[in-house]
């Protein structure tokens, strides 16, 4: 029996929906209001949830509720007649998306497939989460969890665009991949992740790739060592998920390419975790540079940034120089427009049509001619 929690946006379909699920295979609780559905989701166990409707807001609200109440393992399937909804919800952690209408038989067959898929995963991992948040399960625990199952599996962990994958053959961790890195180099970049989502997908076929030839026990000990090293190195730095920013007012210089790259990433508010995830270098190279940048005040916590800028202005720092240069030489008008755009209230923006820049044929423009004539005459 598959237990389904179903939210139905339009109550007029209630009878029809109930008839579809009124078989021995399914037990479906249908709700047309979010509040009672949320209440029951906290009291009873369900195999998955279906949102039958076209409002992305409802889907977001429901997924948000599940995440806040430790129900993020609950797969959410969207059924809708709204084609454009796919674009709106594609970034959300949804398990499946069915575009309606479908012939009744095809619909039943697809639903059966979804149930089989979920059933299979649930049986394999025995009611453990097969997808969820890294805040709940650390990678070390997940590796042990998959290892104990002795099946072929891919464990994916994702944070934003960053994606790491661990491959298991009959429970043995055989390969790890992160961007172009593999083996321990990849594990080195993944082991300290404490945010993001994970997903475990079990497969029948074995994986041919192999970059880790040690036993799981040895790999786990190595991972634990890497994690301990990270923990030890991560001293005197702000909390990993706190917003930080590059301090433009500092007169100090970045002293190497890692520092420059970090400062570039921090031109807009970011977090140390995001810098570590995006960086091409290992944490054991980046973390010491982060510490140096904070020491030189080239990086600061965003909350302290304004305070620091005021202080630098009062001391006549380089902020003064910016204004002096700008006032001596009139800036290009298009730069002014960009600044104005940032200041505008987003609701009042009159968006211009998207455009691309295409290089013109190589003919001499009047301005080019002017420059040529002037330079040649000199």
């Amino acid at each position, binding site marked *: 029996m598959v237990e389904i929690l179903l939210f139905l946006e339009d109550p007029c379909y209630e009878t029809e929906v109930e008839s579809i699920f009124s078989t021995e295979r399914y037990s479906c609780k249908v709700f047309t209001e979010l509040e009672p559905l949320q209440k029951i989701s906290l009291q009873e166990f369900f195999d998955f949830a279906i949102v039958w409707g076209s409002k992305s807001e409802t889907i977001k609200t429901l997924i948000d509720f599940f995440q806040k109440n430790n129900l993020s393992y609950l797969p959410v399937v969207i059924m809708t007649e709204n084609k454009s909804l796919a674009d709106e919800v594609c970034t959300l952690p949804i398990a499946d998306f069915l575009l309606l209408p479908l012939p009744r038989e095809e619909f039943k067959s697809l639903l059966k497939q979804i149930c089989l898929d979920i059933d299979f995963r649930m049986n394999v991992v025995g009611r453990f989460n097969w997808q969820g948040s890294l805040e709940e399960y650390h990678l070390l625990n997940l590796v042990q969890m998959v290892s104990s199952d002795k099946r072929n599996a891919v464990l994916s962990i994702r944070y934003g665009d960053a994606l790491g994958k661990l491959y298991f053959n009959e429970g043995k961790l055989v390969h790890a991949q992160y961007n172009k890195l593999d083996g321990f180099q990849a594990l080195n970049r993944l082991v300290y992740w404490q945010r993001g989502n994970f997903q475990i997908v079990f497969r029948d076929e074995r994986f041919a790739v192999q970059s880790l030839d040690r036993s799981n026990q040895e790999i786990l000990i190595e991972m634990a060592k890497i994690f301990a090293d990270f923990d030890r190195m991560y001293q005197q730095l702000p909390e990993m998920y706190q917003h930080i920013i590059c301090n433009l007012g*500092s*007169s100090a210089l970045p002293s190497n390419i890692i520092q*420059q790259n970090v400062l570039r990433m921090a031109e807009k508010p970011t977090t140390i975790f995001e810098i570590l995830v995006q960086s091409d270098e290992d944490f054991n190279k980046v973390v010491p540079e982060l510490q140096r940048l904070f020491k030189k005040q080239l990086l600061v916590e965003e909350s302290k940034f304004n305070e620091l800028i005021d202080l630098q202005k009062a001391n006549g*720092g380089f902020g003064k120089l910016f204004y002096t*240069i700008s006032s001596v030489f009139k800036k290009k008008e298009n730069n002014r427009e960009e600044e104005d755009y940032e200041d505008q209230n987003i609701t009042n923006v009159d968006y211009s049509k998207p455009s691309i820049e295409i*290089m013109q044929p190589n003919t001499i423009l009047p301005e*080019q001619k002017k*420059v*040529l004539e002037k330079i040649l005459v*000199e």
Partner: protein
Amino acid sequence: MNIFEYLLISFNEEYKEKFLSFLPLEKNEIFDLIVYRYAIDENLSFLVYDFDLEKGMPSSLIFHLKPHLSGQLLIGDEKLHEILTSKNDLIHLLTNNSVKNSTVVATRIHKKKYDDLDKTIKEEGLYLGERSRLYFWNEFDIDSLKSAWYLLFAKLQSMNQFN
């Protein structure tokens, strides 16, 4: 009034003087930063920031200037390649937006080698990117210096920026 801003990085003071000598540049100095202004007419001017490799530049200034720069002229000789591929992080930081900006890598070569160059290569340089050229020059041919500026200021300048 259009003002376009450029960065001048020279690995040899003598070479820099040669490039600056024949243009009627207005020299300004603000907070130790030398800026040359080259006015074409009342509607078009170029600013050239002289990057002093010895003194470097505060990061605050680099981050301030970078978004405004339309390009950069790097002047050196046959050793320029070694310098550019060395770990001079400041140069990498300043020039790493060369996809968007115009970049002329002006390399001084021996007169004989220069004379042997094909006319098109003399005028256009070698293609490094959509707006980047490896350009050869020798002081015996004053036009080779002028063409470098023309290449930077006009030919590689984004067509839309003039409009």
